[in-house]
């Protein structure tokens, strides 16, 4: 919690270091899920950090992540107004980062299973519509709460839940067709 009496260059710097900097990882992941491009994600987070720094004196010290995600979302809205809105999907980026397959014969069964899953997950993710892909990226990859994801996307929490449930079922069905996960029974 901030002491208002300490507001000023020194206090702002400390708040920025303590509250904003630790969230850079999360901000980057969220930015990546929104922009689908590493270059755009980096630009967006840089923009977010700059805006956060300028606004730090108005930050009440509570819920830094929620505050930063709001800034990030506003920054993204401004950016997409300036640019074409149809550049959402770059499947290569995430696929490239999916774990590569190596010789897994010597590993325990669980690790083999995880390796096989990782190998096929990229294609299953690429087959998802962008709206489904976004909620999976925000909640499963970036570990945001439903509430945070709803705020970032600007949709009701029920929409997040519905999209997430459908997205996971599609992923599961895709992987079940390849014999990697058991088929759905309900």
């Amino acid at each position: 919690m901030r002491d208002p009496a300490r507001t000023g260059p020194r206090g702002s710097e400390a708040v920025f270091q303590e509250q904003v900097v630790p969230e850079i990882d999360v901000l980057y992941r969220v930015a990546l899920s929104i922009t689908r491009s590493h270059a755009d994600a980096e630009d967006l987070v840089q923009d977010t950090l700059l805006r956060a720094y300028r606004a730090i004196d108005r930050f009440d010290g509570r819920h830094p992540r929620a505050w930063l995600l709001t800034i990030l979302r506003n920054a993204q809205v401004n950016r997409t107004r300036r640019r074409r809105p149809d550049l959402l999907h770059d499947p290569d980026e995430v696929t490239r980062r999916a774990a590569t397959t190596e010789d897994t014969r010597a590993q325990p069964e669980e690790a083999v299973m995880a390796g096989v899953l990782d190998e096929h997950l990229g294609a299953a993710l690429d087959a998802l519509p962008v709206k489904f892909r976004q909620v999976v990226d925000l909640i499963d990859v970036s570990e945001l709460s439903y509430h945070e994801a709803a705020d970032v996307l600007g949709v009701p929490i029920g929409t997040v839940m519905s999209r997430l449930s459908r997205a996971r079922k599609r992923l599961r069905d895709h992987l079940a067709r390849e014999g990697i996960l058991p088929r759905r029974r309900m």
Partner: protein
Amino acid sequence: MRATLMSPLMRGMGLMLRVRRRLRPDAPARCPEVARVLQSYLDGEVDARTLRLVSAHLEDCRRCGLEVETYTALKQALHRVGDPPAEPVERLRTFAAQLATGDIPDQS
């Protein structure tokens, strides 16, 4: 909080489940009811009572237990996809440090 249902049939079933739950708040959960909240359960987004009911059901139900295992494996795999690349995050940390020390002029 509840997963959104897809079809009228499913909605009807959901209503029946809700009525039953209203009448008997502590009745053991059944498979369809668990299926409806399973994703929220895995994400830690259910209230304490739902958590208790689902956990109790999972202790006895092998089929639902398998569903949990399957979606947990999927969730863990998805999380592994997301390790952020070190380089851009490092550049952003440097940028943040420069901001905080005033090395970057405010262009506003």
